[in-house]
């Protein structure tokens, strides 16, 4: 009953390794980056990056827990940005209409992804690779067709700006951070406290058994794909509102970045194991690693190397701790 009150129990939680990894990189940059990095301004810098990434990483992580992958998020970010910019910037529709249509499209593309994954036996990596290209193509083709340009300006004022694309708390922190924290809390409720979360873990553990246990696996799969593509479109939309402009290109870095955050966060690539809090820590770890460099005196040309090495270390450490913790528990899998 009291698994969580012992040290071993704590270490056995999916987020334990992620938390230790986070502490390690925080320490690393606190030493090499100095205090600026931990002052409000510095914190805002990685919080903002983590928020943008985290909104996408969590649903991507849930898909991974359920045994699926969605890499079309890389196209959904510019899709979301461009849709709202074309509608409310180029055509001048009311911003709320632009937002509503963007979100609706996000939902629709998620449904398409989910439908194709369910109906074909093709792995979701490949299906969403197809949608990645297709959505990229649609965004580019339509934007150029409509606006004769690949960069569309958008000026939003009033409540929509304040809600989706502004800075809060002294003008350093994107409002997206609040969204991220709120949504993360929502996901924690959904995944760890509602019955539906249980279903996601069961699906990742054994999809056939999950279906046999009466879980509507197909509807859950659809829901998760809708969550990931809508979240990505949302992030793109907020970026367009914040930066007053949308580009056709970009967003692809979100694919790997989200996968890294999720795995650093302790989710098993094979599904069935992980936690929202872990992904949350993983995202922050990633944001700190990528942003922390700018607070150090390292030559910027080495930043990729440092990111690569730190990530490897974080993952290895994470893994070592998990193994150590699990070694103290019986783990015979009789099947």
């Amino acid at each position, binding site marked *: 009953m009291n698994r969580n009150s012992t040290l071993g129990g704590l270490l056995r939680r999916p987020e334990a390794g992620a938390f230790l990894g986070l502490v390690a990189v925080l320490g690393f940059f606190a030493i090499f980056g100095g205090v600026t990095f931990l002052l409000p301004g510095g914190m805002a810098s990685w919080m903002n990056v983590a928020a943008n990434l985290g909104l996408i990483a969590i649903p991507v992580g849930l898909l991974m827990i359920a045994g699926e992958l969605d890499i079309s998020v890389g196209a959904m970010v510019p899709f979301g940005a461009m849709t709202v910019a074309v509608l409310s910037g180029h055509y001048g529709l009311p911003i709320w209409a632009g937002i509503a249509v963007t979100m609706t499209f996000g939902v629709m593309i998620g449904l398409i992804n989910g439908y194709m994954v369910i109906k074909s036996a093709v792995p979701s990596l490949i299906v969403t690779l197809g949608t990645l290209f297709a959505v990229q193509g649609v965004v580019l083709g339509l934007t150029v067709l409509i606006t004769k340009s690949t960069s569309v300006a958008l000026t939003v004022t009033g409540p929509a700006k304040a809600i989706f694309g502004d800075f809060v708390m002294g003008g350093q922190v994107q409002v997206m951070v609040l969204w991220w924290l709120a949504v993360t809390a929502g996901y924690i409720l959904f995944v760890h406290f509602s019955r539906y979360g249980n279903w996601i873990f069961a699906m990742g553990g054994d999809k056939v058994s999950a279906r*046999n246990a*009466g879980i509507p696996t197909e509807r859950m799969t659809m829901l998760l794909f809708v969550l990931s593509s809508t979240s990505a479109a949302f992030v793109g939309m907020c970026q367009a509102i914040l930066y007053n402009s949308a580009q056709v290109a970009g967003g692809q870095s979100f694919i790997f970045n989200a996968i890294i955050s999720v795995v650093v966060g302790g989710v098993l690539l094979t599904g069935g194991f992980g936690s929202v809090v872990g992904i949350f820590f993983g995202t922050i770890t990633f944001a700190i690693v990528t942003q922390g460099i700018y607070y150090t005196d390292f030559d910027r040309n080495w930043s990729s190397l440092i990111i690569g090495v730190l990530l490897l270390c974080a993952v290895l450490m994470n893994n070592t701790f998990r193994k150590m913790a699990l070694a103290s528990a019986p783990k015979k899998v009789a099947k």
Partner: protein
Amino acid sequence: MSTILSLQGVNKSFGPIDVLHDINLDVKAGEVLCLLGDNGAGKSTVIRLLSGVHQPTSGQMVMDGKPVTFRNPREAADHGIATVHQFGGTFPLMSIGRSFFVGREPTRWVGPFRIYDRRKANEIAVKAVQNFGITRIDDGDRLVGGLSGGERQALAIARAVHFGARVLILDEPTAALGVKQATHVLRIVNEAKKRGLAVIFITHQVMHAMAVGDHFAVLIRGAVAADFHKGEKTREEITDLMAGGASMSALEAEIAASA
């Protein structure tokens, strides 16, 4: 005893492959029906029809006198049919409590939210498993992957019985179990029968079948080749039927002799 569920002239094909032909079976309350037959005879397929995993190609399933169709496992479960499938059914990386309640999680209201009631789930799951004699399990947060094969099987069966099943289906529950654990499962089957459930029990072990069965149906190549009651046939006859009609006694004798 009253018939709860029956199959009437059921056929099942997968594409071009006919797996079941004209199956007629009655499942009665408070009775254990042993489904016997060779590897590949179609036993698990019958189970999958009854539990809503597959639908019959033709023929009728009747429950309490009314025709029913189960479009998915959930509908079968809603009709009180609980199945422990041959492989899988538990989730190694989930806790005992969560695994026990998968798909039927207990919730409670916390403010505006209906949240998963972990404590209740764990309590019920542990109690249900302990009721079946597995007293070593006392922490509902332990991962299922840490249980022995017998303990897992007990968990799956306890789960099925718990959800007010009227029909309990067990597909080869004793195959990987040790003698003690298998006996345990047999006791559970008897327990369930006494509570008035209808039980369908699949096994390849004559002794296990004879220990609990009231009624026996033997499948040979997808058709019901024999349907009889306890005491109507000898162990040797049953063994021969289970082997698909071959005369096993000769073989067994040969082995015993040569050994």
